[in-house]
Structures are given as structure tokens and as C-alpha cells.
């Protein structure tokens, strides 16, 4: 038991690492503030392209979406961060993460929006167009608000996944929460800082997960 | 006094949902081969009474004997008893992932331990009896409502129950499909099945019931042969209920 506490819940070491962890948390927050809006907006564009009436537009979009859903985000990130310099493009870790997330989570958000938009009956389109609204106005004021409400649990769920996913930025040395914790671990030879980071992730995401589970089961019934 | 000749003997049955008392001391006896019709306004407790009779609802108080066996005795094997108490639901409740035949044979095989071939023979006979011999391989979603309800009746009949409980068996059906289900019930009655039916099919009650029980607010108000209940109801509440139904 003592071994367990000293190895996983070592208060002294966690206290030492605390300032580092906080700085890491700040970077994680910054990262989220960048990649969540990017994904939400990018995904909407992806969905609209995928719903295009023109086959020549729709099909390449589907192929790209499946492509980015098939490649693990970490692979995408490393390709961008370590591969692109060979083509003379040197993105900073932060930019590399943002681009990788835009491609990966854009595809996932896109699928969610698409399901939402497809769930709205044709009658809504026809009613809106019959009152003289343009296609764009119909989409903005009638379809998308209903679609978003229908898939809200999925959007929240995917956003939780995005927040969790920011931890892979540690692999390209972006000093976010997990990177800072792992740095502290390697300095102290003690995994307690990672346990502390896990506790921080839990504190942030547990309420969201609880909420989700309620939403999902309510929809399920 | 329990009536030893009774197929179903309910005594002093009480059931509460929270603070709402849905059954307030029900006494009801059903003799073998009798068809008893239970009528009454919605919320009168008639469905709850029926559901207590195979313990889908747990009563709070009282006694329910089926062919002499006390259902509420903790030593009673409730699953064995349920096989002898056929239940037909308003919403059919067929298993959508199984063929009609598999719906029928499931309990025969898993609960009675019959072989696949034996269960199939029994199931096919039960389907023939309800006029669905050609639907054995169909899935419930491919049947009309009336056919689904007949299949559900076959599922209950296949277990050779001693008594059958019908919980508004025709309420979910389009009017033109009701007749086929009533015909099956009529055939069962002709074959001597003991039946308790909760239903609003007053014409059927008048024609087929041995006895009609009128329930209101969790109690039996009056009971008697159909001629008496429909022709000369003694109680004012019975009269006003029947008047609402237009006779």
C-alpha cells in the first residue's frame, strides 16, 4: 500500500510538479480553444459539401472524410509535423496539431452534422422555400438549428473526444498537460504527476460524460 | 374460503402504485371452461388485475390461486406456473428478431426443454389453429396487426395453458382486423379454454361471455351473466358506463 501511494499518489512530487502541470493545463485550454471551433466550423462545411446535389462534389468529399477517419490522428499529426518539413514546410507544433485536428475532427464533426441535417424532413425545406427563403437562408435559419438540436449529444460526445485527443500533442513536444506531466515523471522517476494529470482530465471531463450518459439514455428510450 | 373447483381464485387482492390504490380488495372466481369478461372505464384497475394473475405486477396483499396453486407463495415456481397461464397483450409483443414459428417455439424449447423437432411440430399445429399455417417463416413486421395478434395467441396456446388472460387483445387493431382475432378466441372457447378477457368488445362479450364483471376505481362493482349486466344493470355506475358505450 505504501509503495502504491509513494509511486502513484506521492503528494510531495505532485506538489513539486504542480506549477508545471498548471502551465500544461493552460496550453491544453489554449489548444482546445483553437481546435474545437476549427472542428465545429470545418465539420459543418464538410457536411454541406457531402450533401451537395452534385455527384462530382459529393464523392470526393466522402472519400476524403473516410480517408481521414481511417488514419489515426496521431499518424496524421506525425506526418504533418515530421513529414512536411521534407517538402520545405515547417509547421510549429501548435500549427501542426491544429491542422491535424482540423482534418481529423472535421471529418468526424462533418458526419455528425450530416446525420443531423438528413434527419430533418423534406417538408421543412419545402415549407421554408415556399415562403420565399433562399436555399442558404433555409439552411441557416430552419435546417441547421433543428439538425444541431437533434445531434447535440453526438456533438458534445465528439467534443469530449477532441479534448481527450489534445493529449497526443505531447508526442510532438507541445507542452500541454500530458507533456508536462510526462516531463515531470521523467525528471522525478515517479509516475505520480501523470496520475495528477489524469485527475485533472477527470475533473474536467467527468461532468460532461455524466451529462452525456443521461442524454444518450434519454434518447435511447 | 378458496373454491377448490375454481381454475382461478382471486381473494382480497390489493395493489398500490405509490399512494394510488389501484386494486382495493378484489375477489374473483373463474371456473374451468368459463369465459369471464372484465369491463370498466380506463384506470379502473382491470389490466392491473389481469397482470397480477401471472405476477407481471406484484400484488401487495391477497391471494391468487391458479388450479389450486397459490401464485403468491414464495415456494411456488412462478415460471412453471406462467407456462400454464397464457397471456395475450394489447400490443402483441411478438419478438421482432424471430420468425413467427421461432416466437412460438422459444419457450417450448428453453423453458419446457422440448427438442427442436418436437417444438416445431407443436408450433406449426398452434399456427394452423389460428389460421396462420402459411406464416411460420414470416417475421412479425411482415404480418398485419390481426395476424400478429393471432400469432401471439398461438405463442400462448402452444404451451397448453390451463387458463388464458387477454389484455385488451383487439384495442390496437384496425376495426376490419378485429373479427379474425375474435374468431380465434371464439374457437378457443369452443374447445373449452378457460379465459379472462379485458376488452371493450361489448358485442363479443354479449355473445360469448359466461359472466361479465364490471370494475370501477379498483373494485368490482357488479358481476353477472351478460344478459343481466347489459340488459338490466343493477348499479348506477354500470349503467352510466354502458350508456357511454352506446349499449
Amino acid at each position, binding site marked *: 500500500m505504501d509503495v502504491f501511494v509513494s509511486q502513484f499518489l506521492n503528494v510531495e512530487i505532485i506538489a513539486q510538479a504542480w506549477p508545471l502541470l498548471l502551465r500544461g493545463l493552460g496550453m491544453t485550454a489554449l489548444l482546445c480553444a483553437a481546435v474545437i471551433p476549427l472542428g465545429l466550423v470545418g465539420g459543418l462545411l464538410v457536411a454541406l459539401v457531402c450533401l451537395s446535389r452534385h455527384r462530382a462534389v459529393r464523392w470526393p468529399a466522402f472519400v476524403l472524410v473516410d480517408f481521414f477517419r*481511417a488514419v489515426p490522428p496521431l499518424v496524421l499529426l506525425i506526418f504533418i509535423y515530421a513529414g512536411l518539413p521534407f517538402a520545405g514546410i515547417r509547421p510549429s507544433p501548435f500549427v501542426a496539431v491544429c491542422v491535424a485536428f482540423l482534418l481529423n475532427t472535421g471529418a468526424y464533426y462533418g458526419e455528425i452534422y450530416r446525420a443531423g441535417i438528413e434527419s430533418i424532413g423534406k417538408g421543412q425545406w419545402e415549407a421554408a422555400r415556399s415562403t420565399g427563403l433562399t436555399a442558404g437562408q433555409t439552411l441557416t435559419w430552419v435546417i441547421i438549428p433543428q439538425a444541431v438540436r437533434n445531434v447535440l449529444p453526438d456533438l458534445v460526445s465528439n467534443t469530449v473526444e477532441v479534448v*481527450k485527443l489534445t493529449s497526443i500533442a505531447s508526442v510532438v513536444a507541445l507542452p500541454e498537460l500530458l507533456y508536462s506531466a510526462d516531463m515531470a*515523471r521523467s525528471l522525478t522517476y515517479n509516475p505520480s504527476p501523470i496520475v495528477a494529470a489524469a485527475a485533472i482530465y477527470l475533473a474536467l471531463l467527468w461532468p460532461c460524460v455524466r451529462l452525456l450518459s443521461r442524454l444518450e439514455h434519454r434518447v*435511447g428510450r | 374460503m378458496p373454491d377448490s373447483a375454481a381454475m382461478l381464485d382471486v381473494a382480497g387482492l390489493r395493489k398500490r402504485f405509490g399512494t394510488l390504490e389501484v386494486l382495493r380488495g378484489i375477489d374473483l372466481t373463474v371456473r374451468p371452461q368459463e369465459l369471464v369478461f372484465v369491463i370498466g372505464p380506463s384506470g379502473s384497475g382491470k389490466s392491473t388485475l389481469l397482470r397480477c394473475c401471472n405476477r407481471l405486477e406484484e400484488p401487495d396483499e391477497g391471494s391468487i390461486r391458479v388450479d389450486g396453486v397459490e401464485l403468491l407463495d414464495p415456494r411456488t415456481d412462478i415460471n412453471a406456473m406462467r407456462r400454464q397461464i397464457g397471456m395475450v397483450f394489447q400490443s402483441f409483443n411478438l419478438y*421482432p428478431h424471430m420468425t413467427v414459428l421461432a416466437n412460438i417455439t422459444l419457450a417450448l424449447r428453453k423453458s419446457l426443454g422440448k427438442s427442436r423437432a418436437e417444438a416445431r411440430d407443436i408450433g406449426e399445429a398452434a399456427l394452423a389453429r389460428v389460421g396462420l399455417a402459411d406464416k411460420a417463416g414470416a417475421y412479425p413486421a411482415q404480418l398485419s396487426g390481426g395476424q400478429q395478434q393471432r400469432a401471439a395467441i398461438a405463442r400462448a396456446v402452444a*404451451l397448453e395453458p390451463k387458463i388464458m388472460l387477454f389484455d385488451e387483445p383487439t384495442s390496437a387493431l384496425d376495426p376490419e382486423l378485429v373479427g379474425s382475432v375474435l374468431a380465434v378466441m371464439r374457437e378457443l372457447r369452443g374447445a373449452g379454454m378457460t379465459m379472462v378477457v379485458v376488452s371493450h368488445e361489448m358485442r363479443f362479450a354479449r355473445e360469448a361471455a359466461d359472466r361479465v364483471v364490471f370494475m370501477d376505481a379498483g373494485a368490482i362493482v357488479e358481476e353477472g351473466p351478460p344478459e343481466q349486466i347489459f340488459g338490466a344493470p343493477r348499479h348506477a355506475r354500470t349503467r352510466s358506463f354502458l350508456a357511454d358505450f352506446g349499449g
Partner: protein
Amino acid sequence: MDSSTIFLDAFLNPAVIDRYLPDILKGMVVTVEVALAVVATGIALGLALAALRSFRVRAVNAAIVLFVDVFRALPPLVVILIVYFGLPSVGITLSGFAVLWLVLSLVLAAFAEEIFWSGILSIRKGQWEAARSTGLTFVQTLVWVILPQAVRMTVPPLTNRTIAITKNSALGAVIGVPEILMQAQTAQSFSGNATPLLLGAIAYIVLFVPVVALGRWLETRFAWGRS
């Protein structure tokens, strides 16, 4: 050299492909092994937990919900690092492969439990009642009537979630599991060329695009509009 030659030289260099393709293929085998192992144990455990939860024993259910919540809320990489670097210090040493398999199985089990449980809850009460009224026991009803329907409804969401989680096998690169990404990164640093990274990405596409397409097909096929 014009820019397209530079590009081909850096990203699709024939000599590098020739030299390192076997390593990438070896990585693919490892990735497939991890993925299959995770899918088998994760889904089995998730289904078992969901079935257990339907007995509605208060203490058991609280423990299941706690397990599910924690593994849904924690980034898998965090758990991997804790297990990989933490267990040796309490005297348990697991290979990177075992850690990756264990952690991803638990993560998948948590998500699968939640999905299966939703499915079980969505089966109408009448199905339970009809089965029980024919004398089937609780367990028989669960096994023959409820779970087959619940599982079928959960196929599309479960497929998509399973794909997302098995792709996390790439996280194995961080703890030295010789799967595709690890092989690609090693090859990239030895060759000083980006070709292995592109090969790695292609390897994932070869493995996962068919599964993603399958998920898409299942979604339309099982779109519960059986009328």
C-alpha cells in the same frame, strides 16, 4: 530538380520504399493483432457488463457506471502512460503490447457497455413481459429475447466507436510497440526521408478504409426502418 521531383524524392522514394516496406508490413501485422485482440476482449467485456447491469444490483451498477465514466473521460494515452510507467514500480512488468491491449480493451469495454446498455433500455417493456409470461426466466429472456434485439440496434454506433478506438493502436508507438507508426518513425529517422511516414499512412488507409466503409454501409442497412 523541379519541385515535383523533390516531392517524389522525399515522399515516394523508390529506394526507401524498397528498403523499409517490409518493416511497415511487419507493423501492419502487429496493428492487426492489437486491433483484433482489443475488439474481441473489449466488446465481450462491454457486453458482459451491460448484461450484468440489467440485473440492477445497486452496488454492482454503481461500480460499472464508475468504470465506464472514468474510461470515457480519460485520454487513452494518459492511461497507457500510467500503466506502462507505473506498474513496474509496484513490481508488475507488462510488455508494451500487453499494456496497449489491456488499456484499449478497457476503453472499448467502457464505450461498448454504454452502447449496449442504451440498446437494452430501448427494448420495450412488453418484450420482457411477453417472454416472462411464457415462463422464461430472467436470464433466458435476457439472452434470447432482449440482447439479440439490443445488439442489433447497436451495430452501427458500436462499429464506428470500435474503429475509432482500435485506431488508437497507433499510441503504441509511444511505448515501443512495433506497430505501423513506430516502424514508420524508426524508418524515417534511419532513412532521413519522409517516405516511410507516407507508407505508414497508406498502411492505415489500406487497413481501415474498408472498415470505415463497412461502418457506413451498416449505418444505412441497420437504420431501423423495418416496416
